[in-house]
């Protein structure tokens, strides 16, 4: 029962020490009136805490699903360059992202009437991964960075597509207006974008492997802009942001090195052999990284 769970790790020690007063306590325990004001208020606390924990768990689960689906979308998008059927990949990714958004809609529904920041820790990882995926797709399509406003615009849901509304949400629909929205916080956005740079680095390396000479230069340009943006923010942001700055620097260095190699070798080696030169170069970088 709840009492046993509450004791947890301390339970064993307690039993050992309490050998003596135990009988006495048992006696006193019976004196506690289960309907005293204190007990009734604790019963309501139990209910309140349980409701809160349940909601938190549901959100964590949703966040996990969002993370997984977003990761898969990113893997799919990496196939975009190498596959001849680029349009198809993009469309498929759109379908996948729609699925992710449906999950986010459920999150938004859970948070109706709640303070979003109370449950922020539960959903933050999922949201960051989603931002990474959606900004990656946006970059492939438009070669620019998606803005916070743009992301938030896609996270306004209406009641139209409610195929999978659970009984919980349908009851709350009666009271609520038929739109839900979720706002991404600036910090989540920043962290998501920082992760995006890692994907862009991978995209750069693989596009060289495919003999694409222009993309790396475009990417290094873009990454430099983002890096400048992050250095502008510097340490005014929270701790997590400055932590990502280091990885971002590494990604940028890799991409810049790639461009350098292309420039130097590009003039002297026939195009079809460039990929070989490049792959040995990246291996070198990877090895260095493994050492450090």
């Amino acid at each position, binding site marked *: 029962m709840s009492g046993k769970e509450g004791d*947890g790790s301390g339970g064993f020690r307690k039993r050992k020490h309490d050998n003596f*007063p135990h009988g006495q306590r048992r006696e006193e325990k019976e004196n*506690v009136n289960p309907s005293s004001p204190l007990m009734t208020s604790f019963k309501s606390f139990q209910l309140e805490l349980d409701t809160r924990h349940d909601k938190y768990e549901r959100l964590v689960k949703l966040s996990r699903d969002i993370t997984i689906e977003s990761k898969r979308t990113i893997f799919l998008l990496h196939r975009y360059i190498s596959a001849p059927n680029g349009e198809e990949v993009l469309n498929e990714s759109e379908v996948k992202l729609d699925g992710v958004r449906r999950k986010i809609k459920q999150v938004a529904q859970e948070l109706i009437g709640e303070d979003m920041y109370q449950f922020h820790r539960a959903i933050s990882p999922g949201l960051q991964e989603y931002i990474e995926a959606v900004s990656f797709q946006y970059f492939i399509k438009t070669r620019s960075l998606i803005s916070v406003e743009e992301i938030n615009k896609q996270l306004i849901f209406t009641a139209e597509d409610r195929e999978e509304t659970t009984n919980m949400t349908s009851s709350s629909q009666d009271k609520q207006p038929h739109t839900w929205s979720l706002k991404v916080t600036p910090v989540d956005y920043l962290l998501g974008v920082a992760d995006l740079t890692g994907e862009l680095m991978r995209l750069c390396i693989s596009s060289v492997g495919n003999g694409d000479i222009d993309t790396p230069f475009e990417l290094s340009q873009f990454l430099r802009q983002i890096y400048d943006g992050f250095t502008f923010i510097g340490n*005014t942001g929270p701790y997590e942001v400055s932590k990502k700055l280091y990885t971002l620097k590494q990604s940028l260095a890799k991409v810049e090195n790639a461009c350098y190699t292309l420039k130097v070798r590009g003039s002297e080696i026939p195009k079809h052999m460039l990929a070989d030169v490049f792959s040995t170069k990246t291996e070198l970088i990877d090895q260095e990284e493994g050492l450090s």
Partner: protein
Amino acid sequence: MSVSAMFVELQGALTADQDIREEIRKVVQALEQTAREMLTLLQGVHQGNGFQDIPKKCQKAREHFSTVRTQMESLKTKFPADQYYRFHEHWRFVLQRLVFLAAFVVYLETETLVTREAVAEILGIEADRERGFHLDIEDYLSGVLTLASELARLAVNSVTAGDYSRPLRISTFINELDSGFRLLNLKNDSLRKRYDGLKYDVKKIEEVVYDLSIRGLNKEAAGGAGGEK
């Protein structure tokens, strides 16, 4: 929008956020100061001669709570009302401390557990989230757990001061509190950690009661307590 323009905007948002935190921190510091003064005042009850004028000390402490209420009033104005949990960490500690102080005063006065609504009223805040700056349930429970360890100490010191009836009353109270907490399904968080300490307070008080009863002091006390009531 260009990338750099976007980052300028984000930086603006982050700076605004930091300003708010700075403001909150200032008020919280003032609150902590008031809480410390109150604690010093109430610590007097542990001293031998402090037992006589408990009501006076409680009254003085209650005067401090009016300072707390004005400080809380100013804290409320420092951030948007619907973002309570965004900045919760900043005042969490001091709020738990204040809950403890309020609960301690109420216990000394009436020997009952203060309700969540009553604490909210003493501190000049709301009990429900819907109505504005409120008292989070976990903070309330944490404050109550601090009360338990303070009472364990009080039980020991009241025996030293020759008051043999108080430990028995404290024992009944703590036992009821313990059964109350047993009803809760706590997650593995800070509240649960503090709850794990409650059993040692219970044990401590039980030992005091045991010491009194094998020496026959509780009978004397029971007679005395009956006379008081």
